[in-house]
């Protein structure tokens, strides 16, 4: 009933989708799989009218349609349910279900609460859920909120429901409940697009599975006819097109030893070591706890349990300045929000963490500051007119270099890079990789968080894979393959059954 043909969408500098096909039958649960950044989210946004495709056509019941905005999508019977439920936590379930399409009385235009509550109750009952429509949304569990979202989709007479990683935040029992409800939807004739990283979800629900990779359509198979191994190959089977300038650095003495590090609700039992000159790749799916582990090493999320040793000495890291004092530097994932003061010049941004070094007897030695900052900026080859160029006029890659320069100014021994090349163009990416290689040669220890498989494989000496808050696999550069990493990151189907 829904068909997408030859969809292409690009954003400045990035091809988000290229020549994508998709076909959804009536009453079908269709699983959509792919790595982080494979283009699934962009794809959904096109179906729900958030983005317009640059090329290609969308057919609904055989007719070409143009989905100009989310309202139009709703009118056509398309609804989406996101992993992080987008609800109004202080409003009741009824208000959430009927947000934007409340039933009003014909004469006075006043809202008919009684009617809406009754309808809400009926919708929820249809899904087999005992939730009271008068409850405040915020008091419900994530799973219950999803049920309400599904009820909301039904209330708009949706014929196509898109679920974006709905089981990611659910327990096993809650997932079972969601499967049941999804099947109920299917049986009532609704078509479902189900996006998930879990093989279990796909096997349990899907009848057809489509795989995207690197913004492209790879293929579509009936679930019964494809094995998990073949699916993994389909998801990663790309040639590595970029060369990574990984230089041979001498691995030296141990810099960092982490033992049994844990923080309740986020991650636990994480142990690893890092040596001089080593690049440790830290990978896993989004939400696996990679950033959290690193933020805890940097004192932003102090750990509850476990030990950290820097050069053999047991240390306590309670806040970022403890970490900086100990020689740990962190390049945050969100450049613009966490890394830079965008309204400031390059110079003041770089000198911010080490500003004390320029304090003279009476005032800041701005001449010395300028010299040091300029040297740092040049060492990472920031391309800008001068250090007085304002940060928000720089490209993403140059902004990232400024943050690297700022990081190096604190004279760290251990450098943590959280998605260092996310959203930067190819040229800047290569430049950042080159800088990383050089830093490793100079004896820094580097932890690199990355979701990008070629980057992880190309840059790391060792690769740590995390899944659901645990460090599940440690691979050497020589033995690591995309398949092994992805298998560890997703957990094989058999493991999921026993776990």
């Amino acid at each position: 009933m829904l068909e997408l043909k030859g969809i292409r969408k690009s954003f400045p500098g990035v091809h988000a989708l290229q020549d994508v096909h998709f076909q959804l039958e009536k009453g079908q649960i269709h699983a959509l799989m792919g790595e982080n950044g494979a283009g699934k989210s962009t794809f959904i946004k096109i179906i729900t009218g958030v983005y317009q495709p640059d090329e290609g056509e969308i057919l609904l019941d055989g007719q070409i349609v143009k989905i100009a905005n989310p309202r139009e999508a709703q009118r056509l019977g398309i609804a989406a349910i996101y992993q992080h439920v987008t609800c109004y936590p202080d409003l009741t379930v009824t208000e959430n279900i009927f947000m934007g399409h409340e039933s009003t009385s014909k004469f006075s235009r006043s809202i008919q609460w009684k009617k809406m509550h009754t309808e809400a109750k009926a919708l929820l009952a249809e899904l087999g859920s005992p939730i009271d429509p008068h409850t405040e949304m915020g008091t419900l569990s994530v799973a219950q909120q999803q049920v309400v979202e599904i009820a909301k989709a039904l209330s708009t007479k949706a014929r196509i429901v898109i679920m974006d990683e709905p089981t990611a935040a659910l327990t096993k029992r809650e997932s079972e409940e969601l499967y049941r409800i999804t099947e109920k939807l299917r049986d009532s004739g609704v078509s479902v697009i189900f996006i998930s990283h879990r093989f279990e979800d796909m096997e349990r629900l899907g009848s057809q599975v489509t795989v995207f990779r690197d913004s492209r359509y790879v293929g579509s198979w009936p679930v019964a006819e494809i094995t998990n191994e073949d699916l993994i190959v389909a998801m990663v089977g790309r040639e590595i097109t970029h060369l990574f300038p990984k230089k041979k650095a001498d691995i030296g003495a141990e810099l960092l030893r982490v033992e049994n590090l844990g923080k309740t609700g986020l991650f636990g039992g994480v142990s690893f070591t890092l040596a001089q000159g080593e690049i440790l790749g830290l990978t896993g799916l989004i939400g696996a706890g990679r950033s959290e582990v690193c933020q805890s090493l940097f004192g932003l999320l102090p750990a509850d349990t476990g030990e950290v040793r820097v050069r053999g000495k047991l240390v306590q890291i309670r806040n970022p300045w403890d970490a900086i004092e100990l020689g740990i530097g962190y390049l945050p994932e969100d450049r613009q929000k966490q890394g830079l003061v965008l309204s400031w010049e390059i110079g003041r941004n770089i000198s911010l963490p080490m500003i004390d070094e320029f304090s003279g007897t009476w005032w800041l030695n701005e001449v010395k500051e300028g010299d040091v900052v300029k040297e740092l900026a040049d060492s990472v080859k920031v391309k800008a007119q001068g250090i007085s160029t304002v940060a928000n006029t720089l490209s993403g890659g140059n902004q990232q270099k400024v943050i690297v320069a700022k990081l190096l100014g604190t004279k760290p021994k251990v450098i943590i890079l959280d998605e260092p090349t996310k959203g930067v163009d190819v040229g800047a990416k290569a430049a950042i990789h080159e800088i990383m290689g050089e830093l490793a040669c100079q004896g820094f220890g580097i932890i690199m968080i990355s979701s990008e498989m070629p980057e992880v494989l190309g840059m790391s000496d060792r690769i740590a894979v995390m899944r659901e808050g645990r460090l599940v696999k440690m691979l050497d550069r020589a033995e690591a393959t995309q398949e092994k990493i992805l298998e560890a990151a997703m957990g094989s189907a058999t493991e999921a059954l026993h776990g």
Partner: protein
Amino acid sequence: MEAKRPFSARRFFLQWEWMLVVLFVLVNVFNSFLSPYYLSPTGLRDVTMTFLDKAFIVLPMVFIIILGDIDISVASIVALSSVVMAMAFGAGLPMPVAIVLCLVVGTACGAFNGWLITRFKELSAVIVTLATMIIFRGIAYMLLENQAAGHFPGWYTFLGWGYVFEVPFMLIVFVVFAVFFAWVLHKTALGRRVYAMGSNPMAARFSGLKVDGIRMLVFTATGFMSGVTALFLTSRMGSTRPNVASGYELEVITMVVLGGISTSGGKGRLIGAVLAVFLLGYLRYGLGLVNVPAQILLIIIGLLLVIAVMMPNVLSRKKLP
């Protein structure tokens, strides 16, 4: 890469501070036409003593607003410190001890604000200081009930009324403090950090700045300067009541904002606020000389404030293509 940005005359003169200077000159020219008595040197000198008391709080308030915070409890801190000082003196303590006590109470109140704000991060500064505004004023009323206290020694009057080489003592103290605060804000690492926190609090934290310590320090300094205001205000009035300094918090914030310090944080300079103090002070004096009703004055101040708040928007809109 170039090290320094070249000087640009256009950028130099297109600053809000120059606007304030122009307004200041205009106000004085206008006033001198309105009243023949306006332009007397002693008059212009002595009038500073009528508005400088609250100006002491303007200085740390600049820091608070650059941080993106606000402190509306300052007037209550003034009242409480003043009342404690008067009662301590009335109870037989020597005046110097009472003065120290006044400053200690102010500092403690500020530190209490700072502690609440950094300890309970989900509370915004405006809510915390709204609560302490009521609490501090309440304690002042509880201590003194609705009475006046005073009968200070003669030398204490010097603070608010005295001259050193024909210059009001208050003005000298204010200039010293203003230079000190400007130095901290513009010439030290601490000042740089304050701007960073106001511009992007998250990046400041990720850069390893001791953000809680800095906020604590700034709120404590505001408490201390409220104590200083209490000293001068009480000296000028000769006695105190629990309801003194009412409305000061809004006047102080008005001066800071009129001085070009953005309430969204991270922008503005101390000199702007100092200019705004004198601009408003002389405006009020001049209009008072020709018996313009106070309401008209309020309307003028309000309009100036609207212009000051609009200015950044107007200027940044021009830059768009």
